[in-house]
C-alpha cells in the first residue's frame, strides 16, 4: 500500500473528510448532450461565502479539493478562489473544459501550484467533440488550452467520457493524449440528471460494447486480473463499504448543499445554514450512508461480485434504494467477467437489461470516414 493510500484508509477509518468535490457554478459555456446539470444560476454562493466554506473545510481536515462545475471559469472570481484555497494549503485539482484558458490563465494556474487540471475531451475528431459540447470550435480551443497548461509544466489529464455518440473514439483520444504528452482517463458512466431525469441514460454505451473496452489492453493493462471471475466473498468483504462517499469524501454544490457524492443526490444539509462539520458529523442522512456495509445490501450482499463490484450507492439511490443494486455497475461486472450478477439472476436475465427508457433526440453526428 502506498503512503497516500495508507493515509486515505486512515481518514476513512477515522471519518475525516479528506477529499471534497466543490462545484463553484453550474453555469457553462458548453451544452454537453450527456450533462447531468441545468446551467442556470439559482443563487450561487458568493466569493465571501465560498472562502468561508474553504476555511471550514481546511479546519475539518480536508486535504484534496476539486473545483468543478459547470465551467469553473464562468465565475470571474475563480482564480481568486483557487488562490485562497492554495493559501489554506489544499491540494487543488481543477476540472474544466479549458475553453476559457489562455496563456495568462495557464501561467496563473502554474503560479498557484495547482496539482492537476482535468479537461474533458470527447473525441479526437473535432466535429464529434463539438457536436457533443454543442459549442462550435470548442475542440480547437480545448486543445489549445491543454497545450498552454502543458507548456507551463502542469499535470493535465484528458477525461474521456464514453457514450454512444463517441463510441469507438477512445483509442483516438488516447493517442491524442499521448501526442500532447498528457494523461488519459476513460469513464463509460453516464449519470442521471440531478433532478432525477433519466433521459440522458439513453446515451450510455450498450453493455456489449463495455466488453470491448475492458478487453482493450491499451485501456486496461492488467486485463487478466481485471476480467477474472470474482473470488468468493469473505466475511471481511461483507463487513466492507461501497466507496468513500460519506466516509472520507463528499460533494458541495454551488448553492451550499452538501451531498455524500457528486453522483449521490441525497441532501444532507446546507453550509449556508449549518457548519460544515455539523453536517458531516451529525446529519442523519450522512450517518445512514456511512453505516451501510456490504452485508446490508438487499440484493448485492448475496452476489458473487460483492467484493469486486464498483457498485455506486449514489446510482443505486437514484434507481430507488441506496442499499439496492446499481444496474450500470451490474452491467460492468457482468461484461468484465462474464459472470451473471445476483440482480440479473433474481430477474431471470441471462444478460443485463440495460437502459430501456425513451431515447433522447440525438445530435447529428457525421459518419466516421471509414463508413462514409
Amino acid at each position, binding site marked *: 500500500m502506498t503512503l497516500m493510500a495508507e*493515509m486515505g484508509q*486512515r481518514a476513512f477509518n477515522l471519518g475525516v473528510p479528506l477529499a471534497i468535490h466543490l462545484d463553484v457554478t453550474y453555469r457553462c459555456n458548453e451544452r454537453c448532450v450527456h450533462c447531468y446539470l441545468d446551467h442556470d444560476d439559482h443563487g450561487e454562493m458568493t466569493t465571501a461565502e465560498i472562502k468561508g466554506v474553504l476555511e471550514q473545510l481546511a479546519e475539518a*481536515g480536508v*486535504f484534496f479539493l476539486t473545483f468543478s462545475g459547470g465551467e469553473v471559469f464562468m465565475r470571474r472570481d475563480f482564480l481568486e478562489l483557487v488562490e485562497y484555497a492554495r*493559501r489554506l494549503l489544499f491540494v487543488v485539482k481543477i476540472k474544466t473544459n479549458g475553453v476559457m484558458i489562455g496563456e495568462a490563465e495557464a501561467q496563473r494556474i502554474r503560479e498557484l501550484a495547482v496539482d492537476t487540471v482535468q479537461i474533458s475531451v470527447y473525441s479526437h475528431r473535432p466535429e464529434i467533440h463539438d457536436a457533443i459540447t454543442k459549442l462550435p470550435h470548442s475542440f480547437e480551443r480545448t486543445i489549445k488550452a491543454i497545450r498552454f497548461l502543458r507548456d507551463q*509544466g502542469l499535470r493535465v489529464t484528458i477525461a474521456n467520457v464514453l457514450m454512444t455518440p463517441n463510441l469507438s473514439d477512445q483509442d483516438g483520444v488516447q493517442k491524442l493524449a499521448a501526442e500532447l504528452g498528457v494523461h488519459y482517463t476513460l469513464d463509460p458512466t453516464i449519470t442521471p440528471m440531478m433532478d432525477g431525469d433519466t433521459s440522458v441514460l439513453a446515451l450510455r454505451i450498450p453493455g456489449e460494447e463495455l466488453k470491448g473496452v475492458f478487453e482493450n489492453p491499451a485501456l486496461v493493462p492488467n486485463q487478466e486480473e481485471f476480467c477474472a471471475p470474482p473470488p468468493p466473498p469473505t466475511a471481511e468483504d461483507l463487513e466492507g463499504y461501497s466507496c468513500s462517499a460519506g466516509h472520507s469524501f463528499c460533494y458541495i454544490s454551488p448553492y451550499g448543499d452538501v451531498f455524500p457524492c457528486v453522483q449521490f443526490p441525497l441532501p444532507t444539509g446546507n453550509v449556508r445554514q449549518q457548519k460544515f462539520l455539523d453536517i458531516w458529523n451529525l446529519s442523519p442522512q450522512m450517518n445512514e450512508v456511512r453505516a451501510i456495509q456490504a452485508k446490508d445490501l438487499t440484493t448485492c450482499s448475496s452476489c458473487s461480485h460483492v467484493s469486486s463490484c464498483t457498485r455506486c450507492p449514489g446510482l443505486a439511490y437514484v434507481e430507488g434504494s441506496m442499499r439496492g443494486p446499481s444496474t450500470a455497475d451490474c452491467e460492468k461486472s457482468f461484461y468484465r467477467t462474464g459472470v451473471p450478477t445476483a440482480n440479473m439472476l433474481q430477474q431471470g436475465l441471462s444478460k443485463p437489461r440495460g437502459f430501456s427508457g425513451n431515447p433522447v433526440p440525438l445530435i447529428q453526428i457525421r459518419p466516421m470516414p471509414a463508413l462514409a
Partner: protein
Amino acid sequence: MSETYIARSSGIAARMLAGEMMVMNSMDSTFFTLNEVGTAIWQAADGRTPLREIVRARICEQFDINAEEAQADADRFVTELSSHGILLVSDHPFAEESAR
C-alpha cells in the same frame, strides 16, 4: 556562527491527519508524512526564527531530547525536505512574503 532559517515553500500543500502532517509538493506530487517532531519543526518554519531556536524551544523542551542529537536530526530533516523543494533554507531571515 551563522544561523539557518527555514520557510515553507509556496508550492506545497499540507494538512494534519491523526497527529501527522501530510505534505505534498504540488509541483511533482511528492508526498510525505511528518511525525510529531517533524511536524513541530514544519509548523515553526516561519522563515524568521533560526532553526537552532526552533530546535531549542519546540523540540528539546517539548520532547525532552538532548540538544546535540536534536540539532543533528533537525539538520538532516531540513536537508531532506529542502532537497524535495518542500522547505526553503537560507542563512538570512526570509522576507515576510515568502514565509507563510
